């Protein structure tokens, strides 16, 4: 497997040979920032088209077809449109918080994206508490939603924000427990180490029953965390028009929109790292020829492919299921999902201590 750190180390030594330490670090930071933001935008655009095309497919439609071949340029047109839209100032809003909220959300989601390793050595910083940090940052996003709902001075946004607060705090528990289950299995919180540990086989296979349960719980909780159907109550279009971001326009709305799609990618990415082996290729023990062919596929393709597959499943949920109601949603989390996740954690602990795994 190609180690991307070769490239980064080479850049680092080249820069250090011609300039002092501080300048090299500064330039590296700028390069990284540009790369992250570039990846963020490209991914967001890809996801918008991806969802629109998938949803059209589910609904016996064609989706966007007019701009560019198969509507491929539609997202760019949408992006430029949203960039030149007016930011409508509203009476009675808390101006500072109203403007702050989208930036909090976008910052949280960019930070999370920056923590994901896309391939071997292809990450910004190798934290020893990587996954814990990602979870912590994801909670910051809730603050943005609550602020947006509160500062808009609108009853719909307030209800949307209250729902969102209740929902995201609840489902974070299951999400966290599902991840803790895998951390227990891997024995480390370092994301790179977790992926390296899946060299012999993806966790969803080696961890068998508890890992599969944890994966299912994770995908459900992640759907709720990203406010996507059937858990899209905070923005329940048919009840609250657009929930917490009803009053936003222009690029401020665009930030919510981008963050929503990127969060979809991020939760799918984490799922791929924790359960599906991240950038590890698919191997079947004994099939040497097959395994060698799989090794030729670059790690980044494996990682993105897995992430897109999980996103596909989550999008599939959204375009199939009706929306759940707030009390049913909370009952589902507190009465079913979390107890199962807790029990599953115990099962996993037993498996690890007794070596009942592959």
């Amino acid at each position, binding site marked *: 497997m190609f180690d991307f750190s070769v490239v980064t180390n080479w850049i680092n030594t080249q820069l250090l040979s011609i300039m002092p330490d501080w300048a090299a670090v500064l330039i590296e930071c700028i390069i990284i920032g540009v790369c992250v933001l570039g990846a963020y935008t490209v991914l967001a655009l890809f996801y918008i088209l991806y969802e629109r095309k998938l*949803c059209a497919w*589910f*609904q*016996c*439609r064609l989706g966007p077809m007019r701009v560019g071949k198969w509507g491929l340029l539609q997202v760019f047109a949408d992006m430029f449109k949203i960039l030149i839209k007016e930011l409508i100032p509203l009476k009675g809003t808390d101006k500072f918080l109203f403007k702050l909220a989208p930036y909090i959300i976008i910052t949280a989601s960019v930070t999370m994206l920056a923590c994901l390793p896309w391939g071997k050595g292809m990450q910004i910083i190798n934290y020893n508490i990587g996954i814990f940090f990602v979870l912590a940052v994801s909670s910051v996003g809730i603050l943005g939603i609550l602020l947006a709902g509160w500062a808009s001075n609108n*009853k*719909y946004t307030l*209800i949307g924000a209250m*729902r969102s607060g209740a929902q995201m705090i609840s489902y974070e528990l299951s999400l966290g427990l599902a991840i803790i289950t895998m951390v227990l299995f891997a024995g480390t919180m370092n994301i790179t180490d977790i992926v390296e540990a899946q060299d012999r086989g993806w966790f969803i296979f080696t961890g068998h029953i508890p890992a599969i349960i944890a994966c299912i719980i994770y995908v459900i909780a992640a759907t709720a965390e990203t406010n996507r*159907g*059937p858990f*899209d*109550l905070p923005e*329940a*279009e*048919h*009840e609250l*028009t657009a929930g917490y971001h009803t009053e936003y326009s222009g690029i401020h709305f665009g930030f919510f929109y981008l963050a929503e799609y990127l969060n979809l990618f991020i939760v799918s990415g984490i799922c791929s790292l924790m359960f599906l082996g991240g950038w590890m290729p698919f191997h079947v023990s004994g099939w040497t020829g097959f395994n060698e062919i799989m090794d030729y596929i670059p790690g980044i393709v494996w990682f993105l492919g897995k992430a897109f597959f999980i996103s596909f499943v989550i999008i599939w949920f959204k*375009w*199939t*299921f*009706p*929306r*759940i*109601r*707030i*009390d*049913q949603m909370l009952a589902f989390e507190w009465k079913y999902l979390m107890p199962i996740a807790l029990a599953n954690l115990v099962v996993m602990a037993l498996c690890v201590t007794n070596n009942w795994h592959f």
Partner: protein
Amino acid sequence: MANIQDIIGKICPSATFEQGQTLLVNVPAQDWRKLAVALKQNSDLDFDVLSALIGMDWKETLGVIYYFTSTSRNWEMLSVKVEVADREKPMIHTVSDLWKVANFQEREVYDFYGIEFIEHPDMRRFFLRNDWVGYPLRKDYDADPAVNPIRMEDEENEDDTYSLKVQPDGSVRKVKGKVFDADDYVVNIGPQHPSTHGVMRFRAALDGETVKKVDVVSGYIHRGIEKLTEGMTYPQTLHFTDRMDYMSAHMNRHCLCMCIEKAMGIEVPARAQVIRTMMDELMRISSHLLAFGCTSMDMGATTCFFYGFREREKVLDIFEKTCGARMSMNYNVIGGVIADLHEDFVKDVKELCAIMPSRLKEYHKVFSGNIIAKNRMVGVGMLSKEDAINYDITGPSGRGSGWSCDTRKKHPYASYSQVQFDEVLEEGCDSYARYMVRMREIEESVKILEQLVDAIPEGPIRAQVPKIVKLPEGRWYTQVEASRGAFGVYIESKGEKNPYRMHFQSPCFNLVGVMDLTCKGNMIADLIVIGAALDFVIPDIDR
């Protein structure tokens, strides 16, 4: 008939009787309350349904015409005429405590005729703004735009209401009230909202997410159809019906044509009768498919919406070929239908009948059987059979409460007496039952179409109708089963070529009447589901 006349004569000696299409009882306003109580509570009379409540202006006097139906006595109808001579402060005792449906109906009459109803709990205008000057449906109404300019400022306070209470000494006193308490958290749903299915406005008082009270504010697209018809000839009035409940365009127009034909004594040819029946059933399928799509979409299952529309397209194609339009078909005319069937009609209908069963199965698979959909609808928006009768909730919504109220069975018209079909009833009384009634009614409609499609008789498509349509003096009321319930047309004629009064009794008007009852105690998300399952169409309310 004579029997009823005797009983009413005994209870209310001042009553006089007129024979007509239905028996008409003339009651002076002061004796009306006594008779109303007897009509509802006397087991020999037992008129448990108030089918229509029509405000009237007879130039010298104002008044109300009531149409009652007795479910226990084979859907026999009775009409009552109450007149008041005082044009300045006309007052009639309310019946909204006996027949709950009268609550909104009386507010409409108050809005348009200025008749105040004593003891009515909430005497506000229903359609017009509170600062509207005059009562538009009165014959002496001043329509000068200077009297009612387009007002650019908000209404003063829409929370103020009043009711007229009878004091112990017999006098009537105005008691002021408020719609909502001062500390209620009132959320405005509409008039521009994705799920009110048109420009409808609900003001919902919330306790957290729970709905405490729903106040219906209507009239955002009121077009004054009833007033407009008074200045038009009968053939000209027909086109309005397609624009009320546009999802029951054929049925509404069928009803108006039937009413005029009945008054003129025109015999509609057999071919036209069968065509009308088939068009009505196609319309019903299209309407129920839309209801399926909207119900699922309001719950966030957007994909089902497209499934419903995929099949609805086929129905609209059939309409387009024969009627030349997909919406507002303008197909029925007095005496028959305007054009003969398209040559593909039989083939297309057969095709539709062939695919519908499998498509319905698909809907049930993807939506009706879904656990989330069931959780959202089962037990939500309970409406007991008694309430359904009392609020006159007909159509699929009433049948979802187990009330057998299908006009096609009770007063068969067109070709309905010749076809075999079942009246769909569900006992659930909740939103899911209402939804399921619609889905099963599609099957019944397909059954009717299958029976008729090979048996369309040859012959003329419309009867000979005089060039100038004039109705003899009198009053007529006809009902048909529209997609959302019993749609009624009332015509009062003075022998002219335009109607003296034309009233449309729309089923959706009654449906919004139960929004408060069904939503109370449910969550705000349920309000949307309940509204979708009741399936009202706004232009039908705002006539």
